[in-house]
């Protein structure tokens, strides 16, 4: 059985490592999708667990430009972490929330899911989806819909794996 763990929030790492190990021990084939590998640097996964960073897949170009202009360049220019954080809170996050994302959503309704869709197209299909943190619920919903459309079967959904 192929099991997809969605761990995009990266804040329930002990559960994800233990549960993916349990799936592998039981003969399953677990894949853990994370946002990036940085937060997982201190974790040890079982040998049979495939850990895939979503950042491996290219962002849709408007989002890549958004990230570059609103976040990366200012981070280099402002340098000091406190200033960057203030800038993000007072300016960048607001511009993204009130301007960029509504316009983007209007132009490309499914664009926000392109990275996930690319991952599923390349690494899927999966028989079960385990939602491992709060941030992963929207991606899980998309993945379940997508997998159902591709395979004609609704994957099993769980929020934990029994150890």
């Amino acid at each position, binding site marked *: 059985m192929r099991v997809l763990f969605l761990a995009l929030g990266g804040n*329930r790492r002990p559960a994800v490592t233990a549960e993916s190990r349990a799936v592998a021990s039981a003969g399953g084939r677990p894949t853990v999708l994370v946002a990036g590998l940085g937060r997982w640097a201190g974790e040890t996964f079982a040998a049979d667990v495939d850990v895939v960073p979503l950042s491996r897949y290219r962002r849709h170009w408007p989002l890549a430009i958004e990230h570059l202009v609103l976040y990366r360049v200012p981070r280099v220019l402002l340098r000091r972490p406190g200033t960057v954080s203030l800038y993000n809170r007072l300016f960048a996050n607001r511009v993204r*929330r009130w301007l960029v994302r509504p316009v983007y959503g209007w132009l490309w309704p499914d664009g926000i899911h392109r990275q996930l869709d690319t991952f599923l197209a390349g690494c899927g299909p999966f028989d079960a989806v385990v939602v491992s943190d709060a*941030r992963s619920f929207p991606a*899980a*919903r998309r993945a*379940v819909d997508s997998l159902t459309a591709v395979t004609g079967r*609704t994957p099993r959904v*769980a929020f934990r794996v029994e150890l």
Partner: protein
Amino acid sequence: MTRDVAVVTPWYPSAQMPFRGAFVRAMVEATAPGTVYHTEVWAGRLSSDLDAEVGRAYRALLPSATLSSRTVGGAELVSIPVPMPRGRPFAEQAHRSALALQWALGGAPIPAPVVHAHVGLLGGLPALRRKRSDARLFVTEHATFLDRMLAEPDGHAGYVEVLAGCEAFFVVGDPIREQLADAFPAYAHKLRLIPNPIDFDAPRPAPVTALCRWLFVGGLIERKGVRWLLEAFAICRRDDPALTLTLVGEGELRPELEQRAAELGVAEFVRFVGAVPPARALRLMHEHDVLVHPSRYETFGVVVMEAVAAGLPVIVTRCGGPEQTLAGFESQAGELIDVEDGPDAIVAGFRRLRDRFPGGIDVEAVRRALAERFGYQAVTRMHHEAWFEEGHARPVSGARR
């Protein structure tokens, strides 16, 4: 199994936090209720937009998700995550937990005629809101952060709602009872003492013969006094190079403690095991010589009781619960020490114990005596007397003996 009883709890051991709510699982193992609803807050960095999106996706996935599994005592465990932004007030956590429970039940009430909630607000409020109108609600409070919860106006109001709606409100020690009686005098008559159940069935194979291997079990957080424990260990080790220290648990202080152990020159004698499941914690208790528990505050002190149950002498602070649970057996169980900001009390306590050891220590006698008060059978009897008192339904069959 007492299928007529449902348990609602925000804390239950999981892969994420193997320790959290171990006492609730012990209660489940002892009393064997039919169903345990575990509403677990999953906090994350969520903007308000993302929070709303998460909520929509959560509700869409919930009906098809597998929530049930089996747990101790033959009970059904229904695990219900409660996604929410981090740092939200306790009352909001309770409110969201109630909503998640409602959605997980498909809008129906909890079917059991008796509902027992753990943690006054976080478990009590969801249980109160989702129980049948004729169901009887009991609540056990264990939380050490009661003062913070009651300081929130909505938290206080939610607590009043729970106290008004429950049949009886259990507390695991006098410190909580006094705090609640002061805060809610109108409901003082509902407060009853009940201990956490402790498994006394797994004593160590051979008694302790020397006090070399120190053990700490708990969160590596400020409240547990672990900084002073490490300092005290380094001081005592200067006299006795055979000493080692094992710290079981995780917490924000771990990096600092690892660094401090290196500065004190004891790093190779201090082992950080991390969080472990209860069965491994028990094995570690069997492999060590003394539990050192320098906590600043405990409502009951489950770990101290578990250590005694495992045949381990203890050095423990008078931090609320332990001086009550060990009353009458203090010197036979080990040493009780004062809560102090510094290592001196721990050092002095260890030296007193070491100097008289094994004189006056009789952990086996303490174990037998405490089993009468805190063993599964005793605590099960107390629960059943409350749940099925005269005029109410009886349990379907007996729980673990």
